[in-house]
């Protein structure tokens, strides 16, 4: 390892004054490097302090306050937590978001993994398929919401037209409480392309040597899948599972724009509720409590996933 250039030795008498000591240190390579390093990362660290650390601390403080931004904040102790536990909308939001996450994420992972496997079989036109499957994921969230609001339209939407072709009656996707969340889950499945290309890249990274050795030993396709493909892909699958869960818990735009939490709070996503409490009802303290609960819930589920499935992940 090469190091930075060493400067010639400075005078050997001990420097007495504080500034002198600093000046000495500043002129050593190590001192120079330290200063330079901190100059380079300085803006970022400053940013982290101001935009992340300080708000986090303030959020912790807010947790114990009641504040509507107009009148001064009032200390209320644990009352926010008490309100939270008694708030039926909180539980509803938690329920909606949990169902959404734990249905759409596994489903989407399974679909995208299967698609990746299919595409990986060197069929003609891989690039075209890849593009078509990935394109939906780059549609802006707002445009996506508007589009799907129209697709799910009861009277004139695409989905009901398709059902019509198969002889089914119209379904009130966005109007009936029992159908609204499934409709949004369906919408989320349109975006499997992103996970698919990640899996595809991972699959292509598995050395053929393994498969050849397995074939020589007489392993069929299914055995190859279980003993080679899945273990080698397990770290990628796991990573995308965790990211997927974390991301799904924070869905906002779709809920806000398509159904605005309705009908009858059937699609009241957690962050949507948080937004309402904080910015429509102006209950800053309670909103902070909600956001901390969200944080801990995500942490909790992440920990569970790490404990259960994390054990079985194979790292190279």
């Amino acid at each position, binding site marked *: 390892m090469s190091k930075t250039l060493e400067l010639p030795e400075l005078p050997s008498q001990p420097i007495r004054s504080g500034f002198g000591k600093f000046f000495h240190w500043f002129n050593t390579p190590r001192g120079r490097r330290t200063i330079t390093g901190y100059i380079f990362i300085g803006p970022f660290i400053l940013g982290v302090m101001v935009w992340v650390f300080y708000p986090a601390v303030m959020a912790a403080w807010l947790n114990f306050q009641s504040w509507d931004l107009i009148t001064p904040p009032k200390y209320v102790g644990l009352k926010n937590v008490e309100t939270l536990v008694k708030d039926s909308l909180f539980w509803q939001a938690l329920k909606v978001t949990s169902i959404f996450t734990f249905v759409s994420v596994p489903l989407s992972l399974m679909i995208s993994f299967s698609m990746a496997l299919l*595409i990986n079989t060197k069929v003609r036109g891989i690039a075209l398929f890849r593009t078509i499957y990935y394109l939906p994921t780059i549609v802006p969230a707002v445009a996506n919401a508007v589009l799907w609001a129209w697709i799910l339209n009861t009277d004139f939407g695409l989905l009901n037209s398709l059902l019509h072709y198969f002889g089914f009656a119209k379904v009130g996707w966005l109007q009936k409480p029992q159908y609204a969340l499934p409709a949004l889950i369906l919408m989320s499945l349109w975006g499997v392309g992103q996970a698919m290309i990640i899996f595809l890249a991972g699959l292509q990274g598995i050395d053929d040597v393994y498969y050849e050795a397995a074939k020589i030993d007489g392993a069929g396709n299914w055995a190859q899948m279980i003993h080679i493909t899945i273990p080698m892909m397990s770290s990628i699958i796991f990573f995308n599972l965790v990211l997927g869960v974390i991301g799904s818990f924070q869905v906002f735009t779709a809920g806000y724009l398509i159904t605005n939490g309705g009908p009858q709070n059937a699609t009241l996503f957690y962050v949507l509720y948080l937004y309402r409490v904080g910015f429509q009802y102006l209950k800053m303290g309670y909103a902070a409590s909600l*956001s901390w609960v969200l944080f801990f819930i995500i942490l909790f589920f992440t920990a569970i996933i790490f404990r259960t499935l994390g054990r079985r992940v194979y790292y190279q």
Partner: protein
Amino acid sequence: MSTETTPMAFQQAQVGSFRKKAARRISISRMLILIVLFIGAVIMFAPFAFLISSSLKTETQVFQYPVQWIPNPVRWMNYVESLTQKPFFLYFRNTMLIVIFNQIAILFTASLCGYGFARIDFPGRNFWFGVALATMMLPYYVTMVPQFILFTRLGWMDSYRPLIIPYFFGGGAFNVFLFRQFFKTIPEDFSDAARMDGCSEFGIYWRIFVRLSTPVFITVSIFTFMASWNDFIGPLLYINSPEKFTIALGLSTYRSMMGVGRTRWDLLMAASVAMTAPVVILFFILQRYFIKGVVMSGIKG
């Protein structure tokens, strides 16, 4: 003609027909896979087709059930109408303003910071990098409310400042992480040679690393563009005057605007296409970097 039935010829004939049978067997499963993929592709593409076809229909046609795929006549006026009913070009200009500032800010600060972490060995480097990684774990929504309060106190409400200025300070640990990983792959020899020629650290960064890192810059640039272009909750929170709206915000208000009578879905679809088109065009130009970026973030984690 007498055909020699020597063992060799016989064997070859056997292998030949076996190969043909095997080839046919393989091609059946290949066909099946192709069919499934094709059906999937049709399903994936259907919403796009619906989007575009609805955007070109007349008002009466768009309210037909079941859906007619091909509009007749094709109404290009929808685009003109929907983009002028609301000052769409104003929104476009506003959004581009934010996007461009963010690009410059992030590319500069995140790469500087990534260079610092990758290439300068200073005490506390690992600690601060750990801190950076830790910030990625905190969801946006935990800091959303306090940040709002902070910006209100600073008097930055109803301006673009909350949407731009934070990015001048490193813009997200993720981008810093990407730069750092890439910079680490550049050989030390370059830095050493430059230092021997008397180059400062910033000079090394600027003259060597930036020149060598075009792929990363493009990837980060794409990510930043997408994030700024699509950003909805940011403008929702911090922009109140209609003339400052971004495209995302503008499109979201179309629906309420058309509340009287029936919602003009044809115009809505046209506006949605207008919002999506630039992103799609960007994708087709920079496909390689899109895919590479997504894959990198999905695997290297």
